[in-house]
């Protein structure tokens, strides 16, 4: 059957809603001496799509599980629309949840899977059926309503799981690496699907991933996790352009790192090049600059910047990736495709003072 493009909102009328806000306050989870989550404060706004991004073991799942009610916090509270739910059991929280491994009930068909949450809420049979079909239409799988769940592909199963988590109009949708098991192409398709559904239904979404590209693609805002703490919360642009720490800067996107020291507002690289350090404090530091902010100029005369030799140039279509070798290591730059640098050329690298960030350490 072909994909039908519904007019936005029309088939999902009863699924539409105003998302709710979630507030985490001083939230911690200790396992013995180990703090899996260590005093998190965060406001998730009504209707936004917020991503919890972080390396493996940084506490993302534990945080999500405390919002869902499967893990009891050691300390702190969870509030939904200002109402405390820290001790409310999971089945009474009215939150939708999508897991990495689909978790569809194998003894039910597609439609009865989607009806399950409505059945728990005592919705009469006819209405249950109607709303399940509606949710299946949102994920474009209404034509497979009678299929066994094991007959479906991974992507289809995850869309059923999504329909099942949305059918009862939960106040918040929680997703824990939902597309981790899918291949890249399908993953990107599902990301677009989540964006569309989020836009159409207006539900608040908390999305866990360790894939920075996924986080950048999906999120209204991203919370970067590191060892049980939140390092920074902000829009993808905030995080990319104004990272609050070295970890955030390196975790999101590509960056060049130059080790050195700050001395009175000047950043001195190991080889002695002197660059602007902004307002960084004196001491050992690392300068971070994105490849697209690195300007490459011919090495005529003695301008400011770092002397370098072109190592390799890779043509990427829209632009070129140039790797320059300096006395402080390699620096990558993105340059216009029209620029004609060749390996071996002597160049000078520079950037606007505001484009680089200096972090202690």
């Amino acid at each position, binding site marked *: 059957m072909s994909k039908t493009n519904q007019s936005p909102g029309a088939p999902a009328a009863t699924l539409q809603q105003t998302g709710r806000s979630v507030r985490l306050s001083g939230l911690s989870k200790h396992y013995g001496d180990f703090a899996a989550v260590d005093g998190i404060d965060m406001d998730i706004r009504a209707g936004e799509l917020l991503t919890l991004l972080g390396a493996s073991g940084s506490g993302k799942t534990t945080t999500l599980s405390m919002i869902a009610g499967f893990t009891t916090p050691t300390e702190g509270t969870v509030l939904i629309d200002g109402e405390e739910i820290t001790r409310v059991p999971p089945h009474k929280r009215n939150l939708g*949840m999508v897991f990495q491994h689909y978790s569809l*009930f194998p003894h039910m*068909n597609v439609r009865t899977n989607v*009806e399950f949450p409505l059945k*728990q809420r005592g919705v009469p049979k006819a209405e249950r059926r109607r709303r399940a079909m509606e949710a299946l239409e949102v994920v474009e799988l209404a034509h497979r309503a009678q299929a066994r769940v094991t007959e479906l592909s991974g992507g289809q199963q995850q869309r059923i799981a999504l329909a099942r988590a949305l059918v*009862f109009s939960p106040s918040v949708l929680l997703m824990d690496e939902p597309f981790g098991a899918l291949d890249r192409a399908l993953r990107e398709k599902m990301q677009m699907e989540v964006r569309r559904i989020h836009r159409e239904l207006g539900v608040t979404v908390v999305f866990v991933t360790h894939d920075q590209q996924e986080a950048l693609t999906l999120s209204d805002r991203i919370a970067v996790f590191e060892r049980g703490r939140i390092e920074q919360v902000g829009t993808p642009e905030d995080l990319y352009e104004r990272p609050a720490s070295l970890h955030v800067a390196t975790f999101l996107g590509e960056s060049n790192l130059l080790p050195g020291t700050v001395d009175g507002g000047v950043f001195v690289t190991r080889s002695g090049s002197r660059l602007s350090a902004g307002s960084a404090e004196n001491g050992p530091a690392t300068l971070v600059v994105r490849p697209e902010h690195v300007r490459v100029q011919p090495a005529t005369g003695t301008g400011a910047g770092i002397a370098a030799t072109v190592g390799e140039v890779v043509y990427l279509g829209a632009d070129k990736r140039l790797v320059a070798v300096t006395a402080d290591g390699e620096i990558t730059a993105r340059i216009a495709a029209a620029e004609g640098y060749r390996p071996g050329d002597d160049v000078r690298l520079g950037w606007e003072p505001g484009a680089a960030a200096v972090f202690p350490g």
Partner: protein
Amino acid sequence: MHTSARWSALLLAPAVLLVAICFVVPIGSIVLRSFTEPELGLATYERLFADPTTLRVLGRTLLVALGAVGLCLLFGYPYAYLMTLVGPDMRAVLMVLVLVPFWTSLMARTFAWVSLLQRDGPVSALLAFAGVPGVTLLGTAAGVMIGMVQILLPYMVLTLSTTLSRIDRGLLTAAQSLGANRYRTFFQVYLPLSLPGVFAGSALVFILALGFYITPQLLGSPRESLIAQVIGVRVERLVDFAGAGGLSLIVLLTTALCLAAAVLAFRPVRAMLGQGGDRR
């Protein structure tokens, strides 16, 4: 594909032959005698069904077997469930506890029950201590049931634990996130998924229970004998091979009928518990 199927048929042939020689031939010959002795015809069956004890014993045997299935489920299901919850070390301990009875012979265990259940034995003393004096379970239906359940329980637990350990616990988390409390999660998700194990374990225990001979002989009363004992009496004391063969066939057909009925009942039950799901 075709050739490999032929190969496996060839490889299976010795096993099939062995089963045929050891099981089918003896059963076939004794059943045959029920139709040929004393002369060709159904005389043996007329004789068996004319005797009211035949049906009474058959009914009693079926009831006892069903009772054993019920009790094995009652004790075995929670036990097998517990095995899926505990860590690997504790699971090994629980598994060994189930297997221990297999290390001693059925005869030895039954005699152990005789001494435990006899008049003024330990069980009587215990019951007296608990405020129920003067109870002797040896020679009663309850005594037989205790002995049978103890012997059959491992079969139920082993069959169930295989199925239960394969149930994805993530499904239970999912059910709760969708609004099901523990009770509904059990009845709408866990129980339907465990039904294949319940069915397999029940069928196994039921069939084994129908054939029990030593346990009811030693622990029960002669007035409440089961079908295997009656068959034994015909062979040993009455030298009535035709009658024994006839009874065997009746048991065989009854068992087959019960299993067929259970298979037919199984789908709707499962579908009902699974909210109309139409799987498998």
